């Protein structure tokens, strides 16, 4: 059984999805031109927006049957616009954990997740002073550390150079496979998809060219 399946899904009269199946436990990449609904697809999957018609099944059950907040904690979206609180990395981890009603992560664990995302900065480093790429990696580390069942990444490497992007994706993919986390990635980077995708979904006729 696929983890997600979409049938006849429409969103706001503009976006119409083909029949989509997303298998469990592997890395699925979503391709397509801008405006074809890649980011919206991720939002539909974690229930931050609802489809106007059609059905989305998650683990065999209609997505609307789940408690929306519980669903988002299982199907976590690491969005395109990175947000970090003013303060250190450690403070950012604990702020996000507070919003999720979780007790703060031990320092070694924070360190481990930062390492996975090639963001080995001191825990006291001020996030406001970081570059876009550094913030993106810290944000990804926070999302990863929340250990969802499915991790949705929207342009996770948009601010990273190719080498760093490869390291981060290799680590994230390995971590997800080891922990049986389904990885769904929207990325316009063709090389990244070729290297890391187990499965590609092309939207709006757009393929990686």
């Amino acid at each position, binding site marked *: 059984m696929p983890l997600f399946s979409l049938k006849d899904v429409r969103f706001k009269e503009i976006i119409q999805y083909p029949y989509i199946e997303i298998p469990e436990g592997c890395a699925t990449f979503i391709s397509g031109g801008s405006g074809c609904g890649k980011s919206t697809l991720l939002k539909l999957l974690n229930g*931050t927006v609802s489809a106007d018609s059609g059905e989305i099944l998650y683990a065999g059950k209609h997505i609307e049957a789940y408690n929306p*907040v519980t669903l988002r904690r299982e199907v*976590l979206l690491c969005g395109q*616009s*990175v*947000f970090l609180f003013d303060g250190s990395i450690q403070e950012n981890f604990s702020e*996000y954990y507070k919003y999720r009603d979780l007790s703060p992560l031990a320092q070694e664990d924070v360190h481990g997740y930062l390492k996975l995302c090639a963001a080995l900065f001191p825990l006291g480093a001020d996030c406001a002073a970081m570059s876009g790429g550094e913030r993106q990696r810290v944000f990804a580390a926070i999302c990863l550390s929340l250990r969802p069942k499915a991790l949705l990444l929207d342009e996770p490497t948009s601010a990273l150079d190719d080498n760093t992007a490869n390291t981060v994706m290799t680590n994230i993919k390995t971590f997800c496979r080891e922990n049986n986390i389904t990885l769904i990635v929207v990325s316009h980077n063709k090389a990244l998809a070729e290297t890391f995708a187990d499965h590609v979904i092309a939207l709006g006729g757009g393929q990686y060219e």
Partner: protein
Amino acid sequence: MSEVISLNIWQFSLIYLLLIVVLIIMKKCRINQTKLLFVASLRMTVQLVLAGLVLTYIFQNPRPLFTVLYLMVMTGFAIFIVLSRNKSINKQFKIIVGASLASTGLAIVCFFIMVVVGVSLFNPQYTIPISGMIIGNAMTGVGLGLRTFNESIKARRSRIDALLNIGATPRKILLPFVNQSLETALLPTLNSMIGMGIISLPGMMTGQILSGTLPMTAILYQIAIIIAICAVTCLAVFCSLYFGYKTLYNKRQQFINL
């Protein structure tokens, strides 16, 4: 204490000469607001004269209906002004703001007039000026609170989205905005309390002293009204935002009209 001196209308009109000074300075500094100065002075004069006429009539014919009507019109205007300055909020939110402003304003007015002063709510000499101060301040507070709330939500959209995406509840995401806006709305009142009596003698107290009230009586009224203003600002902003923020998301915990 000496009786209050009624202003002679010709002597009184000399005060308008001061506006000519303002006009000259504005011309000199090329401030293109001479039209506003003119319109504002004219409106202020006409509106106050009308209010004076209405109050004279009501005081001579103190019927409960007039006082109630005055209260309703005043509250209605206050709600209208707040909402016309915050057009972007949704309809449900507007209803909540209106209801909060009216109910908290009238509750504090009733408490002040009936319990603290101890006269009938239908006594226009007390109810009209005091409700004017209370509801006027509630209006300013709610206006400021709402504007802060809306602006900070718009400015921190990425924070709101990121937190929603990782599974925080909309309630937890929005409450800090409610708290911060309430604080912003309360600060002017709290700050003005600090300088009171040293830097300024507040308006109501000045008026009472001018009309011959003993200073110690005047300060008791002033203290009471300031506390009432502080309370009504706090209550009106709290109710507006605390019940209003819930209109920003649906049952599926998705943000709407944001």
